[in-house]
């Protein structure tokens, strides 16, 4: 099967992007140096094509109740024009995907799934919609998604929109006109920086990208690919599905138990996975087997996904889920699941880097937090 192309594909190629297959999409990995793109997002701004993300619209009088039943969050309690990070789990508590849900109207929500899981999430929502007065619509083809991320994002956006940006809170959205196009403008992102995500019609994506490029250039805006997106989210300690999250783990295993809202008042408090998640919550409280931690190395070799974490005797005590050289810290960093006994910040452990045990130190996540 040939990969899907975003509405911005021709632009990426014109910019000389190195393209990569990602979840069935041909996506820009980087345009030049991924390190420079990363640092531009930290210090100025970066422009991302995220059109591979999977949008699903849920609408109807019981849309909120359906999502309360289908997801672990208390979605109907979300205010109109607000967004929430949440998850969809199986009956056994295993994570099917992590999601952002935007409440776009009193009786309408946009669920944004990871590209690799969009079909799974869509199928689950359709199945779980039975009995609810709500409609689940596949809107993957209805939207392109462009993100402007970085400390200059606000200044850049404000020159192409009259939208009330100062009034747009983190994890909120509004319908807006950006560069003369109607879009959903959301103050969300996956980089650890302030920034905006713009959901637009695919036919408008090129115009918006060009307009943002033009007004952004004096601010230092550069196109940024998936490679730097991964190192940015890693520094910010944000999980990536397939790395920190998968169906074998519950939100409590991943240290994200707070997204599970047992206090829901809809559906009699029931939701898919509740029983298993209550047990997972109890275990996480009493006797967590493993914990998700950060690791920092003073060496040059990079701990990478699937490498073993070992103790002083060389016994395996965990595994790396993501690792990369951190452009901001100037040293290798990694996220790992390690036995709870070795999870305290400051603990010295090691990573088996292709047969050599490289010393690393356990640290609290995130590695990087922007000044507010």
């Amino acid at each position, binding site marked *: 099967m040939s990969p899907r192309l975003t509405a911005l594909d021709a632009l990426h190629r014109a910019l000389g992007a190195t393209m990569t297959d990602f979840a069935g999409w041909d996506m820009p990995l980087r345009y030049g140096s991924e390190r420079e793109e990363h640092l531009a997002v930290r210090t100025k701004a970066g422009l991302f094509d995220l059109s591979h993300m999977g949008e699903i619209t849920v609408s109807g009088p019981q849309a909120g109740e359906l999502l309360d039943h289908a997801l672990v969050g208390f979605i109907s309690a979300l205010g109109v024009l607000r967004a929430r990070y949440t998850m969809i789990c199986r009956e056994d508590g295993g994570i099917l995907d992590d999601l952002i849900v935007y409440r776009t109207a009193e009786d309408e929500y946009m669920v944004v799934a990871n590209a690799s899981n969009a079909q799974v999430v869509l199928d689950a929502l359709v199945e779980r919609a039975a009995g609810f007065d709500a409609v689940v619509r596949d809107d993957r083809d209805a939207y392109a998604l462009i993100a402007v991320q970085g400390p200059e994002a606000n200044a850049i956006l404000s020159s192409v929109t009259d939208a009330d940006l100062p009034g747009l809170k983190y994890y909120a959205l509004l319908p807006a006109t950006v560069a003369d196009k109607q879009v959903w403008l959301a103050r969300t992102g996956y980089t650890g920086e302030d920034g905006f995500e713009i959901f637009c019609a695919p036919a408008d994506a090129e115009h918006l990208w060009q307009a943002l490029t033009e007004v952004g250039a004096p601010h230092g805006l550069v196109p940024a690919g998936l*490679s730097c997106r991964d190192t940015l989210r890693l520094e910010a300690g944000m999980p990536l599905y397939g790395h920190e999250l998968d169906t074998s783990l519950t939100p409590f295993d991943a240290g994200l138990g707070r997204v599970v809202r047992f206090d829901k008042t809809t559906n009699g408090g029931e939701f898919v996975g509740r029983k298993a998640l209550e047990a997972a919550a109890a275990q996480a409280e009493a006797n967590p087997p493993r914990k998700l931690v950060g690791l920092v190395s003073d060496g040059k*070799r990079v701990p990478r996904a699937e490498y073993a974490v070992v103790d002083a005797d060389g016994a395996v005590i965990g595994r790396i889920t993501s690792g990369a050289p951190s452009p901001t810290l100037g040293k290798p960093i990694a996220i790992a699941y390690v036995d709870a006994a070795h999870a305290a910040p400051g603990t010295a452990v090691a990573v088996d880097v292709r047969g050599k045990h490289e010393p690393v130190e356990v640290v609290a996540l995130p590695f990087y937090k922007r000044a507010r």
Partner: protein
Amino acid sequence: MSNPQNLQYSKEHEWLTAADADGVSTVGITEHAAGALGDIVYVDLPSVGDTVTAGETCGELESTKSVSDLYSPATGEVVEVNQDVVDEPALVNSAAFEGGWLFKLKVTDTPGDLLSADEYTAFTAG
């Protein structure tokens, strides 16, 4: 990018200079390979005095996203390694054919299947 005419190339994307008067050749990786790897953050090179064998692993190149083996394009004894790239691996990205060279080799055997610049260009275009 253009591949210098005066070098030979391996299919593993190393380049090799013609031997100088002492029989020493310089080895690096091509711009094509450096570009494909992305930003190189760590290089592990053979040591001076090591014997390396054509087509066999003699080190590692680590980039943001991946680790790649470094192969030697010829057989011989390592007589010098480029400390500049050990200290500043990004040199491999910025000057693959010049300051980003990796090591020098007193060549005892050169495989017959090294490519010319034009052959390598065609190889990487394919």
